[in-house]
């Protein structure tokens, strides 16, 4: 297969970026999208040009590192997969593929397709944890947890922190990411203990870092590689409002 690639190139955060067009040829349909990028980069290196910088790591859809906006979709046109799990058979032979970095004020571009998602770490540092000390814990089976709750907690915990939600949201809102963490811990008895504090602290940090307001479009859920439901956003709203009203 052959493709024309329109890729965003930007030297660093301060420079102006622009699209550049490249061609790749003889790509097998079984090649993954990122392997196609590897081939492009190897070609560029041989031409003496700098390769396209892009984030990637595990290439199994779990580390959340890859972050490309492909033909208008976060992580590309397939549903419920990360960029690294996209295969070229999903694209039409001979087509043009437009590749952009995540675009959100809270995710500044570092270079080309690489953005800084440190804001997500900061939100979690604000309260995305249970305050336990190593070794001062009860037996694992001391607190039975209904299977349904554990399953729901796991649904939310599947978040890979890739940033697709905020990158997709027309409001640049990180609510799905924040909600996934709050909701995952809120469904467990051990997480309930500091639930109110957590919801308030994480929402405050999210607002402070310049993420937008959720308007319930559901675009985040549609583009989330782990299909995390906006029902978790409803739970976050509930947790936050209950906490604030109790103050």
């Amino acid at each position: 297969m052959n493709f024309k690639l329109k890729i965003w190139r930007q030297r660093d955060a301060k420079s102006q970026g622009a699209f550049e067009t490249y061609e790749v040829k003889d790509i097998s349909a079984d090649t993954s999208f990122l392997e196609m990028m590897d081939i492009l980069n190897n070609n560029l290196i041989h031409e003496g040009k700098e390769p396209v910088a892009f984030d990637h790591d595990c290439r199994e859809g779990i580390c959340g590192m890859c972050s490309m906006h492909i033909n208008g979709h976060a992580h590309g046109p397939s549903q419920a997969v990360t960029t690294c799990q996209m295969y070229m058979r999903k694209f039409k032979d001979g087509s043009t593929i437009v590749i952009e970095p995540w675009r959100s004020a809270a995710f500044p571009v570092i270079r080309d397709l690489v953005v800084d998602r440190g804001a997500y770490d900061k939100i979690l540092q604000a309260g995305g944890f249970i305050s336990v000390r190593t070794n001062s814990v009860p037996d694992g089976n001391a607190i039975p947890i209904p299977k349904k709750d554990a399953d729901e907690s796991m649904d939310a915990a599947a978040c890979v922190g890739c940033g697709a939600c905020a990158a997709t949201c027309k409001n640049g809102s990180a609510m799905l990411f924040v909600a996934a963490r709050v909701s995952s811990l809120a469904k467990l008895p051990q997480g309930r203990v500091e639930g109110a504090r957590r919801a308030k602290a994480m929402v405050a940090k999210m607002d402070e870092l310049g993420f937008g307001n959720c308007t319930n479009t559901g675009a985040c859920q549609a583009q989330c590689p782990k299909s995390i439901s906006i029902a978790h956003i409803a739970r976050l709203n509930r947790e936050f409002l209950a906490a604030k009203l109790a103050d």
Partner: protein
Amino acid sequence: MGCFLTNSSVGKKLVMSISGCFLVLFILFHMSMNLTVLFSREAYNMICEFLGANWYALAGTAVLAAGVAVHFIYAFILTIDNYRARGKQRYAVTVQEKGVSWASKNMLVLGLIVVLGLAIHLIHFWSKMQLVEVLGEHFAQVGEYTVSPANGALLMAITFSKWYNVVIYLVWFAALWFHLTHGVWSMFQTVGFANDTWYPRLKCVANIVATLIFLGFAVVAVACYLNADSYISEMVTWTPGM
């Protein structure tokens, strides 16, 4: 605790949700009131009389105006926030995501159309009714007709006798329909009353409410247009207190 309604994203959304809910309830009331005109013009005028420049009606109007203002101002604040959060550099290619409604991404535009329609509506009706009474006048001049502030039925018939007014109002109602299909279920989501089981139900309720409101208003406008002559001749001689 007062401040989270102004300084947190979820708090601001709560204000949108509650003010929106209030406006939906008002619209439902307004629609029910309008429907009486189809059955009895006199009955409709009785309600108009009741809602004239009485203290309770004025208080209600003030609260309502405040509701609209809050909803409107917060919408702008949120939109400005969101615009900033989006960043300066925009995507070259965007798509409509699967399962995402067009209305949900265009609430501000739809809201602006609704507000514009509201302005026209206030000029057409409120300025000729409650405002006239507040100013201590007894009649308003509408084209060739002199209309009593409580003769809402006549005013309605005169207004909708013009086809272009009907079209303007239908566009307005359509915008409102779109706005409500997203807004109604969204207000449940914002207060936290929603989950995967309830989304289909809430969205169904939203569609029903939006459609009822659209039809309720539209049928009155269209009926007035079709029966303009008979309604006008019936009501032109009506006087308050009959």
